[in-house]
């Protein structure tokens, strides 16, 4: 049994280096203009973004090390996606709400989440470490695509409140195939909801390349639902910020949803339990290494004389401290209390759980008396 060559594979595939890519900063750090987008950022602000990128990368590296040492059960590294996350998250206003998947550590940093809180769920002490309302960053969602509907419903709530808040939903290239994500597109379009669908196309869904999900560029999915889609260089923090900010502003001003495809790359393994050598070539990784999101900002800051070695040393030092502090805090994290098995399942007391809790307590008690 074979697939007839003429019919088996899709004609088109996701373009490697597409023309329609919005870019404001080239891989070697040249500022370029774009007719539709500009970032009116001061030198200080760009230096701030660089600091974000460096620290986010450092924290990710530390978490990766902690996972390798068994201090975390698993870690999904964001390496390579720093600009997509920092650029989009820095475009948010405090009142905006963000719905992450499980890899948005850089977004958590920008939303002011205490760094160690990001590690809690990966250490297995809880499922989500931070207060979503305190940071306007929803808890991580592991079931692919589910949070995109939550974000859309939240945006419907914003409409009903009549406020100017906007919502951003993060998901991946693989997630774009899930029914829930496409239903969210249907809803957002029909409701004209104030939401930005931010798809980080990091080229891989575990071992599957993006062309297993779509034979055309993912940003064009929006065409099918009647709202704008744009592909941005996901390794260009300036472009990611500019594109996201514009999309958020459109949402605020009643122009409805936008799909942003951040064209980027997952430099590491899917998670620490994955082995990318089974399915992709080192050459591909090396090629993307040349488009590194952090290096190009550094190059720009140097060329443009916006920053000196001193600044880079400061940031580097701060990042190092952040890394060691993260490790210190991680190792100090207390194990969860037994009662957390039942504490947060229902708001009110629940006869069945109360019964289970009591029986288990007496069961544990029985060990104190006799031991088998």
């Amino acid at each position, binding site marked *: 049994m074979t697939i007839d060559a003429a019919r088996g594979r899709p004609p088109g595939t996701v373009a490697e280096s597409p023309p329609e890519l919005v870019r404001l900063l080239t891989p070697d750090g040249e500022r370029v203009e774009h007719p539709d987008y500009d970032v009116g950022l001061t030198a200080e602000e760009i230096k701030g973004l660089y600091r974000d990128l460096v620290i986010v990368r450092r924290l990710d590296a530390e978490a990766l090390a902690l996972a390798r040492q068994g201090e975390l059960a698993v870690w999904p590294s964001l390496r390579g996606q720093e600009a997509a996350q920092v650029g989009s998250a820095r475009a948010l206003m405090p009142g905006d709400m963000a719905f992450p998947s499980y890899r948005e550590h850089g977004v958590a940093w920008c939303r002011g989440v205490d760094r160690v809180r990001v590690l809690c769920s990966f250490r297995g002490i809880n499922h989500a470490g931070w207060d979503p309302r305190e940071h306007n960053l929803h808890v991580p969602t592991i079931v692919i695509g589910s949070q995109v509907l939550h974000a859309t419903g939240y945006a419907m709530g914003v409409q009903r409140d009549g406020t100017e808040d906007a919502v951003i939903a993060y998901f991946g290239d693989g997630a774009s195939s899930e029914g829930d994500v496409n239903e969210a597109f249907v809803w957002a379009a029909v409701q004209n909801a104030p939401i930005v669908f931010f798809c980080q196309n990091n080229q891989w869904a575990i071992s599957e390349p993006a062309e297993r999900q779509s034979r055309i560029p993912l940003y064009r999915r929006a065409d099918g639902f009647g709202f704008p889609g744009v592909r941005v260089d996901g390794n260009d923090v300036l472009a990611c910020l500019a594109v996201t900010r514009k999309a958020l502003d459109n949402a605020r001003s009643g122009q409805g949803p936008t799909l942003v495809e951040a064209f980027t790359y997952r430099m590491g393994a899917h998670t620490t339990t994955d082995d990318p050598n089974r399915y992709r070539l080192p050459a591909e990784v090396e090629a993307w290494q040349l488009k590194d999101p952090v290096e190009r900002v550094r190059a720009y800051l140097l060329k443009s004389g916006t920053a000196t070695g001193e600044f880079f040393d400061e940031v580097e030092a701060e990042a190092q401290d952040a890394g060691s502090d993260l490790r210190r805090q991680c190792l100090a994290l207390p194990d969860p209390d037994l009662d957390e098995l039942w504490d947060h399942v229902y708001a009110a007391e629940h006869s*069945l759980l109360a019964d289970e809790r009591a029986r288990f307590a007496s069961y544990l008690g029985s060990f104190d008396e006799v031991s088998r």
Partner: protein
Amino acid sequence: MSAETLSLSRAMNEGLRKAMEHDPKVVVMGEDVGRLGGVFRVTDGLQKDFGESRVIDTPLAESGIVGTAIGLALRGYRPVCEIQFDGFVFPAFNQITSQLAKMRLRSLGMLELPVVVRIPFGGGIGAAEHHSESPEAYFTHTGGLRVVACSNPSDAYTMIQQAISCPDPVILFEPKRRYWDKAPVELDLSRAAPLGRAVVAREGDDVTLLAYGPMVKTCLEAAQADGSRSIEVVDIRSLSPLDEATVLSSVRKTGRCVVVHEAPVFSGYGAELAARVTERCFYDLQAPVLRVGGFSTPYPPSRLEEHYLPDLDRVLDAVDQTFAW
């Protein structure tokens, strides 16, 4: 006056209206709930009175209905979702099981989802495939959800309001074939039983019938029809959490128990009732807890449903068996 005679559908409608008047955050969403007022007219007139922003005719996608309801709840709303028929809740099963039920634990109690999912359920109306199912057991096995079923207009009126004000997600099963049954409705909520409580619908001494939703009426009729034995009927009302106290005290009194539901017996909710009652009342039981329900097959074409569904005779046959054991 505090009582009014209404159909179950109308009582549910009145309860929804009350809840919407009382709390502007309550929104109703689903397929055809707006202009049409729902295929069972439960939301009749609500869009006209509360507007399109609070009574939302959604796109045709159940996962989207529950998924966006979760988002609305996260923003402070209290969505009431209508699933048009029992057989169409499954596209939403993922959102209900992995998101709606788990969000509170996931967030260590920082988030709550006061979402109500209304599901007309059960057969006996001669409907097409997927329109007569009883999927409650898929939800009672899911921690984080409250699962309740009403059996009469009064409970419909109160339960919908209690469910909406409940901070936990509630799956509310409505007995489709009883929508048009009329009965006096107690309008004074303070007099109603709490959401989590079972009630003795009929007192008796010899045997306990455990039922909920559409089968409560069937059991009451069976009890009525049986001249020789004194049959107690307990309306479970809250399938999860189960009001054990009410159930167990009844069985301890009668020493015999028959569980009745329309859903397939195998691995159904009745299995939990039987296992739990047996464990707690082992020495009180004169006979094993027997189960009367649908067969372990997909719901049959409507011309066969009379055989598939428990009826008065099958209930009494089981009662006979418990005495003959």
